[in-house]
């Protein structure tokens, strides 16, 4: 435990919110912004600027931010869990699912 970290929700209908500070597994998250105040703990280490699920999101459901679907869940997601390339895919850009989870760098490009 290293204190509270702010989780910022943009739209009342969102099922994810943005972490404003780096959090470690088990850290308490302080809800801020739109929507209902809630108690959450980080499921795993998650970096500032990344998204965390506010409630359970079943496989195939929309990931909602700004009140709009920003992608589709490619796995069942638990509250407090990091939402990124490993469990959310674009409806348009197929390539983003092939990027490295942490660096965002393409993994399929051949250099030789």
């Amino acid at each position: 435990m290293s204190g509270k970290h702010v989780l910022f929700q943009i739209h009342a209908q969102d099922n994810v919110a943005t972490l404003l500070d780096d959090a470690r597994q088990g850290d308490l998250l302080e809800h801020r912004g739109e929507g209902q105040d809630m108690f959450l703990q980080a499921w795993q280490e998650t970096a500032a600027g990344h998204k965390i699920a506010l409630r359970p999101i079943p496989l195939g459901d929309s990931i909602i931010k700004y009140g709009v679907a920003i992608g589709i869940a490619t796995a069942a997601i638990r509250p407090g869990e990091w939402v990124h390339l490993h469990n959310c895919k674009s409806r348009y850009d197929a390539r983003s699912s092939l990027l490295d989870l942490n660096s965002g760098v393409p993994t399929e490009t051949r250099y030789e």
Partner: protein
Amino acid sequence: MNDPQWQGYLRADGKLGVRNTALIIYTVQCAEFVAHQIAQDEPDTHVIGFPGCYDNEYAIRLLLALSRHPNVGAVLAVGLGCEYTQPARIAEVVGRSGRPTRSFFIQEHGGTASSIRYGKSLLNALKRELEAVPRVSMSWPDLVVGCECGGSDGTSGLAGNPVVGRFFDWLVDQGGTAVFEEVVEMIGLRHELEARAAGETARIALGLTYEKAEQYCRAVRQYSVSPGNFAGGLTTIEEKSLGAFAKSGSRPIQGVIKVAEAPSHPGLWLMDSVPDQHFMQFGYTNPNDTEGIIDLISAGTQVVLFVTGRGSVIGSPISPLIKITGNSKTFQRMSDDMDFNAGAVLDGTMTLDQAALSLAALVRNVASGGLSKPEKLGHREYFIPYKHQDTPGLLEGCRA
């Protein structure tokens, strides 16, 4: 904010300005120095121009729209004498709007020093006419506000743009007009754009504009997302696009206007600054922030908002630029340049609604004559490139 009215400037064509500016236009780069020297030490006198010798219909439309802008009361067009773009034609067309105008060629007035003297005498005559412009009450329904973002960081999509979006909702509800742009940053949002259309005509226009932007991105191989964006926490192009789109708020979109077109009625409008198909294929959309801002001003926006998370030190001619950051650290570090701290929303010291109303109070203050930070510092950057856009249709907008 209790008094929704303030004093503006009534133009002969019925437009209402929040500044009473004399505009000097140079019609080729060769006349730029003389134009700036004429404006030197002259209050409320701004300079714009087009550097190319070969003319460009897009640029001429843009110069004319800026000359007939609500904040502009008089125009002096200065040319060298051998370029394609004709200062006398600009003066003639702008004169039809009832604005006093003058024009001359440097080559006919004996060089730099005598041209500056002659230009100053013409400017003084114009300024005497500007003093007679009637002051009238104006309020939110008379105001057109633009918004652009640039120098963005993670806070722009979280706080900066959403605060502007909430303010735009409020402005539109007051009967005002709001204009946003950057269609190429809305890739992936075709459905959201169309769903926001105020009617069938707007829906078709939004669909076509989106399609053109997507084709443009394919043609120039430039999509607006990078590995660094993903590493920073953005997961999809839709998410990134929504961060930019957030500045549009939630009200219906009345339609699409092109550069140098004015919205035909109040409400929220999308500006399309993407080049249309042309035999020379020249043109680039939003090559930099100052180009995007001058495009917004060409729609008749009397005040423009600029959201910059990392912080930017630009301003604009003709219409005051209000600089907003969603990053409290940027606001503190660049306090001489930043007008508004939307970062208060992330800090938890203001709600989105409180921030939007506070921004409205600032816009009202600037509209009623209070200087924005870039105005105080004397910033008047702009960029007018060669570009091609098909002549705007009259279906949804009218020439500014």
